[in-house]
């Protein structure tokens, strides 16, 4: 997983609330290997491209100043709906490193952390203010700094955000979470022994034929 420390990049505003992961990547692309070169074109595919494959000019990432944005500033409940991690893979394939929003779909939020993408929760008035600045100054950059837990706006204002200590450490180091957990093998084994005594019924029986 690529570590995340600090990113200064063009940010794209997405004003629509409740952007679901079906919109981020339509279901018909989920069978594709995330390493295929065209994966980034699946991102927002049906709102980004017309039926003939040409770009829809009204979509923010098709407007030259926002093209290639590495930061997305979204509205409430971005990434709601399906658990498809492909939504994060498509954002990452496009080059997005951070998503800022007043709230995020819970599963999407978790999936970000597994792929080196930083989810930043900021109050609704702050994200609305950031989006307004990005509309007024297309192509403006934001700085997202995980170490200091701050977002620096185009107008120079700095906004502090909370991030869980565990997730922060994992992102800063880009550590493999499974390898970390396998280091807890003895605790897991102890737990299983205790669990087998206290909740023996929780292990399913082999059905009698």
């Amino acid at each position, binding site marked *: 997983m690529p570590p995340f420390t600090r990113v200064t990049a063009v940010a794209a505003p997405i004003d629509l609330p409740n952007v679901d992961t079906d919109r981020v990547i339509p*279901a018909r692309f989920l*069978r594709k290997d995330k390493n295929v070169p065209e994966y980034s074109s699946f991102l927002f595919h049906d709102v980004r491209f017309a039926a003939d494959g040409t770009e829809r000019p009204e979509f923010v990432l098709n407007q030259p100043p926002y093209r290639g944005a590495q930061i997305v500033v979204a509205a409430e*409940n971005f990434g709601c709906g399906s*658990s498809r991690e492909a939504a994060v893979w498509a954002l990452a394939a496009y080059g997005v490193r951070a998503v800022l929003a007043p709230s995020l779909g819970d599963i999407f939020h978790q999936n970000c952390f597994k792929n080196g993408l930083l989810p930043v929760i900021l109050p609704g008035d702050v994200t609305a203010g950031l989006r307004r600045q990005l509309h007024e100054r297309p192509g403006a950059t934001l700085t997202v700094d995980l170490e200091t837990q701050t977002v620096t706006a185009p107008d120079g204002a700095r906004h502090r955000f909370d991030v*869980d200590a565990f997730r922060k450490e994992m992102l800063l180091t880009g550590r493999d979470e499974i390898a970390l957990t396998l280091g*807890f093998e003895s605790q897991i084994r102890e737990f299983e022994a205790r669990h087998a005594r206290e*909740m023996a019924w929780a292990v399913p029986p082999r059905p009698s034929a």
Partner: protein
Amino acid sequence: MFDKIWARHVVAKGPGGHVLLYIDRHLLHEGTTAAFGRLAKSGRRVRRPDLSFATADHYVQTSPGTPTADAEVRAMVDSLGRHTTDQGIVYFGVGDPRRGIVHVIGPEQGPTVPGITLVCGDSHTATHGAFGALAFGIGSSEVEHVLATQTLWQKKPLTMRISVEGRLGPGVNAKDVILAIIAKIGAGGGVRHAIEYAGSTIRGMSMDERMTVCNMSIEAGARAGMIAPDETTVAYLEARPWAPRGEAWSRALDSWRALGSDAGAAFDREVELAAGDIAPTVTWGTSPQDALPITGRVPDPAAAGDPGRRESMARALAYMGLRPGTPLAEIPVDRVFIGSCTNSRLDDLRAAARVAQGRRAVVPAWIVPGSGLIKRAAEAEGLDRVFVDAGFEWREAGCSMCVGMNGETACEGERVASTSNRNFEGRQGKGARTHLMSPAMAAAAAVTGRLTDVRTLTA
């Protein structure tokens, strides 16, 4: 109840309030096979194959005789069969009558029981919370993590209790209850929360109905939704193939009976609804929160106070091809879909059949049972004859037209009366327009060709 289950599954404490949570049950489907590939590549094995169960539902087609549409899908399904066989995981594959939608067969076969933690790489995993399990959907990386370690790093969510009290009116059922709940708290209302559904209305529901309610927790933003187990739960589970047996069964019963929330348990948020206020409900927009009683009219974005809301409503109406003020019961439909992990169980099929009986579908209408066993049980009751005689299409089990990834989709611009869980743009096919509703309401739409108040048919 949530706190009791959580506390019993903490393996270790990590920084920042995270805990390593033990996972009692892992359900798998062919959409999550990539995790097996990554696991193999890193030289890791499945830690507890005895706690995992797999089936093929998302990509399998439901037209009789053609389970897979193309070589790509066949490869995915075969890959799941191969990996589960290699690792010793129980697999309900194509041709097995027990195969079905993962959230239908978990309870049906008995791996789903109260008091456990259960995960699946699918957002509708909260369905299993109907049994008093802590069940939630996870992403592909988390699937791999569970396969390798049987644990997940999790932060404790907030808790919300939603109480529904009173008797539901005629023609009103579990789907209407959950749509009303989502409309009330919003599509993001449950974010970072685990929901407990309570109250006399919920307690009076069958397990099939409770699953419908818990299933759509994610449409209100909540990863988990649960209902305390009671005698209805116990009666459903007894003698299921993978439910506890003998001595284990009686010990499980003792544990389950003590699982419910204690009187005076505190929740971070409480929400209350009166059953009598809930009418047969349909959605008009592109978020499950866009739900109204069938007696209502398409809302006017101009009446929305918030400019963001105004814009998203206008966008939804443009996509749905609807004009403000149109009575919902005058909206014509092109197609009907009765199925999905929300509404494909025997109770759902019976409710639809009661409406279809003696009537005639005037638009294409599919019935997709949730599992092969439900299909058989419905046929034993003669429901298939009722549907076929009424011009409905009786199909094989699977996710079908709910999920838009198996080739079973609606056409651009087509309007679908659907018992599924999501009316997102493009969910049932690019440009397809979805109205969510109960099985009875969907059957009513099939026989009239428009959104219909089922009470006007059954009265």
